[in-house]
């Protein structure tokens, strides 16, 4: 049996997925799509599944924040100054953690830390998801165009990528968010909505360079492959080749890098809030809470809970992203 094309027979022997399904019963051997194979690999990666579980949990928490806070907490901006020692302005008894206040209360005004962390998840995830969507969309379009068409398109887009990669993004965002925020009165949208949109735009728009590079590289190698050549020789036009031949093969890297970009964006949003250009108070954000907590290092719970929230979110996305990469693209080097 030397026939190189006899893949299905080989696979039955060699790949555990096949063995597993085979063991399930006397079912006939079926062809499986790439997606099915990836899903099977992913299902066996307990760590990645754990990450996915946490992510789903966070999304549920974010969506149902008002309900959760209604059951277990107090309105996030409500003061509870009776719980504060007016000499030190820190919570009485250190942290104020009780059955009433699961994570304790903030120094100074006694706001419920639990409620604020829960509401903070909304802002963090909202911004991270949509910013990632923007950068992945821009990055994919730019990367595919540069990689497929080459020539001057590639030259221009690649230099553009270099510029965006070399940009001191954090500093620039600080300036941009600060400046744009001042035009609030001239705009139809205001307050938090404006700030959220602004952050999504800034974070998304300045991080497409990374993903564009990866997509460009993949496209470069894909366009030289036989199946693309075949399509071309049959007279397929560029749009057909791009959407039917190349894009489907880019799904894996796009998914992987999107998943890995989300935690970066969570951190980026936290950093901007930490530096005071994020969402305006009193709206709760994780980065904003961390920033406020710095002054109160003697009451560590104030920093611990929002810090843990960021940590767990970032870790969950990273683990899931790693698992996804292993599943979709097992040959990629780690």
């Amino acid at each position: 049996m030397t026939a190189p094309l006899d893949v299905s027979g080989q696979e039955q022997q060699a790949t555990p997925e096949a063995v597993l399904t085979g063991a399930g019963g006397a079912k006939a051997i079926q062809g499986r799509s790439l997606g099915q194979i990836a899903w099977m690999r992913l299902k066996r990666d307990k760590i990645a599944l754990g990450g996915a579980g946490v992510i789903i949990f966070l999304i549920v928490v974010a969506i149902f924040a008002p309900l959760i806070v209604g059951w277990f907490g107090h309105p996030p901006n409500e003061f509870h100054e009776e719980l504060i020692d007016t000499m030190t302005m820190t919570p009485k008894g250190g942290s104020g953690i009780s059955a009433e206040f699961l994570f304790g209360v903030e120094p100074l005004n006694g706001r419920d830390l639990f409620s604020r962390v829960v509401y903070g998840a909304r802002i963090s995830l909202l911004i991270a998801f949509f910013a990632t969507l923007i950068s992945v969309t821009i990055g994919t379009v730019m990367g595919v165009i540069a990689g497929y068409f080459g020539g001057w398109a590639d030259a221009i887009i690649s230099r553009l990528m270099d510029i965006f990669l070399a940009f001191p993004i954090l500093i620039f965002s600080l300036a941009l968010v600060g400046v744009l925020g001042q035009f609030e009165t001239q705009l139809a949208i205001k307050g938090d909505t404006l700030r959220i949109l602004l952050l999504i735009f800034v974070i998304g728009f300045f991080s497409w360079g990374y993903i564009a590079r990866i997509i460009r590289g993949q496209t470069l190698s894909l366009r030289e492959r036989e199946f693309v050549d075949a399509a071309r020789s049959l007279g397929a036009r560029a749009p057909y080749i791009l959407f039917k031949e190349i894009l489907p093969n880019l799904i894996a890297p796009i998914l992987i890098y999107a998943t890995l970009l989300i935690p970066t964006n969570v951190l980026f949003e936290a950093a901007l809030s930490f530096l005071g250009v994020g969402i305006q108070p009193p709206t709760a954000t994780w980065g904003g809470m961390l920033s406020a907590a710095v002054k109160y290092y003697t009451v560590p719970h104030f920093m611990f809970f929002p810090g843990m929230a960021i940590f767990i979110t970032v870790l969950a996305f990273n683990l899931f992203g790693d698992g996804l990469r292993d599943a979709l693209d097992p040959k990629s080097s780690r």
Partner: protein
Amino acid sequence: MNKKALSVAASGAALALALSACGGGGSESAPSESAPASAAAGATGFNAGLENVTNPSDKKGGTLKMAVTEDWDSVDPGDTYYGMSWNLLRIYARPLVTYNPAPGKKGLELVPDLAESLGVASDGNKTWTYKLRPGLKYEDGTPIKAQDVKYAVLRQMDKTTFVNGPTYLGDWLDMPKDFVSVYKTPDVNTDQAIETPDDQTVVFHLKRAYAGFDNFAALPGTVPIPQAKDTGIKYRDHVLASGPYKFETVEQGKQYTLVRNDQWDPATDPIRKALPDRYEISLGVEANDLDNRIISGDLHIDVAGSGVQPAAIGSIQADPELKARADNPIMARTWYVSILNDNPPLDNVECRKAILYGADRVSLQNAYGGQLAGDVATSLLPPGIGGWQKLDLYPTGAPDEAKAKEALTACGQPNGFETTMTYRSDRPKEQAAAESLQQSLGKIGIKLTLKGFPTSEYFTAYAGKPAYTKANGIGLATNGWGADWNDGFGFLSQIIDSRVIREAGNYNLSVKDPAVDGLVDQAFAELDTAKRNAIWGEADKKVMEGAYVLPAVYAKGLLLRGKGVTNQFITGAFDMYDYLALGVE
């Protein structure tokens, strides 16, 4: 020391709190320190430094270690507007007169420094004459002349070169119209403003009478600078010392060290003890680190003198031994909220009153750091400044919701209204104050939108720029002010006189009342101190009756005396530790 100045110092964060950095001081009876051989039993315990010299000693020698979270504006006496700087510069520079290095109220007295006596007034307080002491020298051995004082005063009027200092001298002296600056118009004869009939005599001529001119003569602007040594803005790199210490190294933003100036003659200087051999001043020390190092004794003094960080407040409260090293002085500084009356409905006094009735004053006090950080304020003028009276126009505790509703109805907004409140985003206390007002005013239907702006542009581009506040419907703005010196003039003149309002960069955001302006004019003209103080008190009351401001707290700072520091006490002149008398064990 204008509040602005002070606060910018600690980069918002620290200073914002009214309690932030702080100075260290005598180890009093602390059993830990070195042999108290010479130490007479001074006062000890919490607040001992308010009225007494703690750990008194005449022992010379040693190194006094100071630190500050950020560099201040400048060590050039003609270019500085920070209280800490005005206090500290007296170790290397001598103005004509200065504040008596003594605890509490006694520290407010003016005493002659370069001059032999306080100013001699003539021509109905329009002319003031000072005679220099004989035998004064700079660090290079050249004699200090009256002409140098004149040059220094003229020099600091150049606000394009020296952007930081106060403008009082330039505003009040009878300057010739064609004088621009010592650099641009060096040949203009300025004798109509300042005469120097001989090397020892300076005569100042004012545009109009002012009985308190000695307060001007105590400004750092009168520290002599010889024209030959003036290097303009670069003079800060080597300030020529007239006091007992001279700069050894000047590293902007990193550190200053000072050593003894051997040309300084103690016989010419009755007020300075000049005990330490050396001063080391570290700049840019992280605020919490700074507090911890003062607690441990590694540093002696926080130059900023505005109080420790919240974390250290906790430690000090928890530890009786530390608390015995702490002082909690009231400062000549008020944190308040300006109620801007440009945009409806706040152009109606009843709507402004609704804010004063509806604000939860205890919550506001908490926002500024609680009872250690300040007492609930009833007006702008802080206690401790002549003319202060405790007003009871508005509640000072829980809000009076019934009266607030009444006021809202009277102003035609029975269901409340919406407005925008600005605050300095890098000052957590002001953010907390804005959040607190948003809560308490929300309960009577006044809905606040909060907007934070960086301190550096707060007055020049946002809250202090009427074009901006009008266009953006700003109704409330956090504000704060400290006395340039401790009297009604030094505190109120820049913040309640509507005629000081310019296109931008205003500190008076909301007080535009002809009656108040009239009282200010009366106070300027009144030569009798007691009557003058009463007028300032009356002006203060008028401001409250017009509901132009919501006073939050009279600031207090929690300061920590350094371990092993001698002669440490709070001076009433600066409301921080006096930096002239200090020594180390």
